[in-house]
């Protein structure tokens, strides 16, 4: 319950296990939205902490400092344009792992409304990619 509350409130304490920062591109396509949804679900499962990727591009001090405080940085991009990964690298961060949703079998284009079955399928693939 306490963990659930912290996640809802959006701040994670560094006293807990290693902090894996999840940076989704959250772009304007189905795969961009899937990237964000995956980051949300992984956060709910306690497998990482969703962060504000746009704040990296915006050079927002609190978000930059929070990123410096992570133990691992994971970029979750929707497509090969790799906007999340490139934003992080441009800000001087090293991306430890990069996930690309289209490489997991989801085609770019189509409805922005995600199907639950697609989310579950991609989520399993992302979890596999993160553990390998």
């Amino acid at each position, binding site marked *: 319950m306490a963990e659930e509350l912290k996640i809802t*409130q959006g*701040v*994670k*304490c560094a006293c807990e296990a290693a*902090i894996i920062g999840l940076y989704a591109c959250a772009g304007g396509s189905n795969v961009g939205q899937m990237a964000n949804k995956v980051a949300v679900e992984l956060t709910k499962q306690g497998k990482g902490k969703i*962060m504000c990727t746009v704040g990296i591009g915006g050079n927002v001090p*609190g*978000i930059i400092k929070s990123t*410096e*405080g992570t133990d691992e940085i994971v970029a979750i991009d929707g497509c090969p344009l790799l906007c999340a990964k490139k934003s992080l690298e441009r800000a001087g961060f090293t991306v430890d792992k990069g996930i690309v949703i289209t490489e997991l079998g989801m085609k770019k284009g189509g409805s922005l409304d995600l199907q639950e079955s697609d989310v579950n399928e991609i989520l399993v693939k992302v979890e596999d990619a993160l553990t390998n």
Partner: protein
Amino acid sequence: MKIEILGSGCAKCKKTKELVEQAVAELGIDAEVVKVEDINAALDYGVMITPAVVIDGDVKIAGKVPTIEKVKEWLS
């Protein structure tokens, strides 16, 4: 000078506050050190990982306990 320590009251947050207070005392500067446990305050600064140190509205560190040398550098 206002120094805010953002955190939930965990061990690292307490340690951070102790270090900041020690640095302030050793430098002999006039500063108000405030422990902020309101998570919304952290979010307002864009801080997503605690502990964090904010000096006069400027986020100096998040997710780590700073060294006392680093705190003194910020205060000087």
